């Protein structure tokens, strides 16, 4: 994992009283979180700031023996939500964990469209599993993206008039046809 130099600066873990400095501090944290998620393909974070399906605890730096307080973590996450770097996992918006968007949904949708075009998958049904876990997307950034986040991106393609989503008997998105 590649951390910026500021990650080893002890005061980064204490909420700064000066508002200008604090904004800079929070921005630094957001940069760190996004860059680590991107490096490690981490998609979800809970409201305590723990990555889901990963042991990495970004707010606990054992090397310099500093941790970020739960309250300050909340503040950082709230800022990320405000900047649309985090979105709620369900559509209602009160879930306890979030998707991390180091790219915004629109860019993800465009990237997927690019995949459909370059791998010659237009005009045919493609399962979501094929899109995110199949062998043909291994080198693409959205490989291993969770299904419901994929759904959000694919819905944008439907909106653009480029796709139709196929659902299973439980009304869950399972496949897509892009033209």
């Amino acid at each position, binding site marked *: 994992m590649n951390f910026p130099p500021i990650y080893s600066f002890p005061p980064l873990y204490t909420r700064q009283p000066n508002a200008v400095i604090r904004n800079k501090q929070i921005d630094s944290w957001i940069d760190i979180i996004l860059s680590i998620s991107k490096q490690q393909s981490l998609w979800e974070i809970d409201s305590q700031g723990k990555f889901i399906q990963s042991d990495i605890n970004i707010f606990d730096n054992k090397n310099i023996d500093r941790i970020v307080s739960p309250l300050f973590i909340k503040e950082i996450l709230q800022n990320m939500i405000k900047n649309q770097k985090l979105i709620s996992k369900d559509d209602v918006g009160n879930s306890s964990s979030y998707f991390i968007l180091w790219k915004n949904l629109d860019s993800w949708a465009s990237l997927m469209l690019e995949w459909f075009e370059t791998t010659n998958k237009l*005009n*045919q*049904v*493609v*399962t979501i*599993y*094929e899109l995110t*876990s*199949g*062998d043909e997307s291994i080198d693409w950034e959205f490989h291993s993206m969770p299904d419901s986040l994929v759904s959000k991106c694919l819905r944008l393609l*439907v909106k653009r*008039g480029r*796709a*139709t989503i*196929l659902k299973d008997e439980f009304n869950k998105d*399972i*496949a897509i*046809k892009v*033209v």
Partner: protein
Amino acid sequence: MGQKGSKIKITEQDRAVLQLKQSKDSIHKYTKRTSDLISHEKQELKILIQNNPQKYKENKKTRFILKRIHYQEHLLDQASDQLINLENMLSNIEFKLVEKQFFEGLQNGNKILTKLNKEFTNVDEVLDDVQEQIAYQDEINEALAQHVSGVNDYEDEIDKELEAMEKELLPHEELESNPVPNMPSVEKLPELNNSKPKIEDTTPVKKPIDEEQQRQEPALLA
């Protein structure tokens, strides 16, 4: 191409392909899991051997794990074969769909062609008429060519007469103006060339009709 507004139709074939792909996905999942399992067990085996380098061959557990690895590998092979089968089938379906489109295109083209051919019912009459018109045109051309050549003769005669007069009037200049007699012959050449193409003209007019006839014959057969 194929963009019918915001709604994209899902056909029966699409549903069938979806089912195939779903089974493909589950086999894919299985192969992934199995290969993970195998590498995990191999690791376990290595540890067992390292821990007991002397008597690992007698250890029942070692033998058991190795057997299980073999079995899993066998399953993995089978699954891979199945996966390839499914993938082949999918590409076959895809190709058949393309073929279907090709066939439909062919059918449509044929329909239009027969419809167009029906519009040529009185083609013989038209052709006869055209040939008549061409013959008439030839006659006219000939007549005109004759008339023109007649005029030319007349002009030649006049020229000759004038030359004769000239000889009479200016006999002493004959020696000096030796190149003059050559002149008329040079003048005559282009005149001959002018009349020739008019005869040739008739042949290229006929040719396209022959071609048209030839083209229509296979079309009618189809």
